């Protein structure tokens, strides 16, 4: 049984009829759908165990705290983190990147450089601009090769003693390119720079092992990996996290407070001020359980096959351009494409009439769109429940598009 046959019935939303057709949901890179177990875990939590965490000395408070911290342990094992202290709950990838950029930014001085890449999501560009602003810090970007990969020779040239931060996506949200995290991180370490990895498009799709990647920070979201919205993970190597000053204050992140100063709490709570997303942590735990039951290696294999199929069938349609590495190169679960003579929003709107949901626009990656020479593209993206038949349906619908407007 293929993975989609195995999982399909677990996702109630996939039975939706959209514009008279059964929903074909190909926008999982923007946000995936949730299996029943995740929805039920959150309902169950609210129905039976909700209270605030950590300082509620009563039964419900203890249950909520236990669940919240269990979720942390589950994440730790899922990503191969050395300890639970390295797992910080955030509101999502964007929040995690802002947290790191804000905190690291305060350590930068005039003349320092931040190195990003030409394929970043705006979430891994704009926070660095904010961190660099008014500090005399320069942002540089690693360019791309014609086959849509990072230019590693250029990386060597751009990496200098001035480089203090290297920030890049594990998997591009448009091109699907896998970036060589280990290699990039190892070179950055030699150069004395901290590495920050945007794992939003990798964590839902491939097995992760923080102890092997060699980066300092790794950030991802729950809602792209079958979990709820509103929660994400910032993993930081212990020494790297300890070197960061918290930038957001409040309850929970302190040990003691006086009127004019405070002493920070231990890791990881130092970076979790205020009431955290508790039900969301419970939901994320259920999502991880679900993915682990499937096996991340199976998930990766399934989605790699879908991506290869999509690149081949879409690329074979006259007038369709597929972006990113060629079909024989490993790519993430996204395939961006454009249809000659049609604006990507019109492509998405017309596909929606057939019940097919794809993303269209600049995908929050405008510098990359300029590299592609377009204002936007359409993008199909996949998850555990996506079937090869759905990719075929997409291809048939795309082939018929140009006669429709």
């Amino acid at each position, binding site marked *: 049984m293929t993975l989609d046959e195995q999982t399909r019935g677990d996702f109630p939303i996939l039975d939706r009829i959209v*514009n008279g057709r059964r929903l074909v949901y190909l926008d999982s890179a923007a946000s995936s759908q949730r299996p029943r177990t995740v929805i039920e875990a959150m309902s169950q939590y609210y129905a039976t165990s909700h209270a605030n965490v950590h300082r509620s000395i009563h039964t419900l408070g203890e249950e909520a705290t236990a669940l919240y911290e269990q979720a942390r342990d589950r994440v730790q094992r899922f990503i191969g983190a050395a300890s639970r202290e390295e797992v910080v709950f955030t509101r999502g990838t964007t929040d995690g990147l802002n947290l790191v950029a804000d905190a690291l930014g305060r350590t930068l001085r005039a003349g320092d450089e931040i190195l990003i890449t030409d394929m970043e999501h705006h979430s891994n560009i704009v926070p660095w601009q904010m961190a660099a602003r008014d500090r005399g810090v320069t942002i540089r970007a690693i360019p791309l090769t014609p086959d849509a990969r990072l230019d590693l020779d250029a990386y060597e040239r751009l990496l200098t003693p001035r480089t203090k931060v290297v920030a890049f996506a594990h998997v591009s949200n448009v091109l699907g390119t896998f970036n060589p995290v280990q290699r990039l991180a190892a070179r950055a370490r030699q150069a004395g720079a901290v590495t920050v990895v945007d794992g939003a498009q990798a964590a839902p799709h491939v097995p992760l092992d923080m102890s092997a990647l060699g980066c300092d920070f790794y950030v991802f979201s729950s809602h792209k990996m079958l979990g709820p919205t509103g929660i994400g993970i910032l993993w930081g190597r212990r020494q790297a996290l300890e070197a960061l000053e918290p930038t957001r204050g409040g309850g929970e992140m302190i040990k003691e407070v006086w009127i004019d100063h405070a002493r920070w709490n231990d890791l990881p709570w130092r970076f979790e001020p205020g009431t955290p997303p508790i039900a969301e942590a419970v939901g994320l735990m259920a999502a991880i359980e679900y993915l682990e039951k499937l096996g991340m290696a199976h998930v990766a294999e399934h989605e790699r096959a879908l991506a290869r199929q999509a690149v081949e069938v879409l690329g074979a349609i006259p007038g369709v351009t597929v972006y990113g590495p060629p079909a024989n190169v490993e790519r993430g679960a996204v395939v961006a494409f454009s249809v000659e003579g049609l604006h990507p929003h*019109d492509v998405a709107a*017309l596909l929606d009439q057939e019940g097919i949901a794809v993303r269209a626009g*600049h995908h929050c990656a405008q510098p990359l769109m300029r590299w592609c020479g377009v204002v936007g593209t359409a993008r199909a993206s996949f998850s555990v429940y996506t079937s090869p038949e759905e990719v075929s349906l997409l291809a048939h619908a795309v082939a018929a598009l140009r006669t429709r*407007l």
Partner: protein
Amino acid sequence: MSPAARELYGDVIRERWRRPRFRGELPPPATTAEDVNPLCGDRVRLSLRLREGAVEAVRFTGDSCAICSASADVLAELAEGRSTADAARLGVDDVLAVLQSDIRPTRMRCVTLPVAVFATALSNAERSHRAPETGHPRPEPGTRTPRQ
């Protein structure tokens, strides 16, 4: 084309998108304005020429979807020949009335972008017109008369 697509993109939108009547750029000394739709990165550029207190010509260019292009095309047609005061009152509803399509909330920005760019271009044009000459007082905001 399927019936569903016809509702989404009515005949006016399809016709305007396929054969826009006002696509292009006016030669200098036209006034231009442009802006982008942050949602999709679409860019619309309008050029506009005034003559004797009226909008003489409007043209548009840009990378834009069918709805946005149709909106710009319709707006240009509605504006040409109107007095500047009258043209300044053109709004989204005027364009929507011509488009006659089921514009979803997520696509409304595609309609409004050319309208906003037109307003900027018109006010720029009026300002630059007034600068060298006198006797063309700008209409006071709020003193609008209903359109016929």
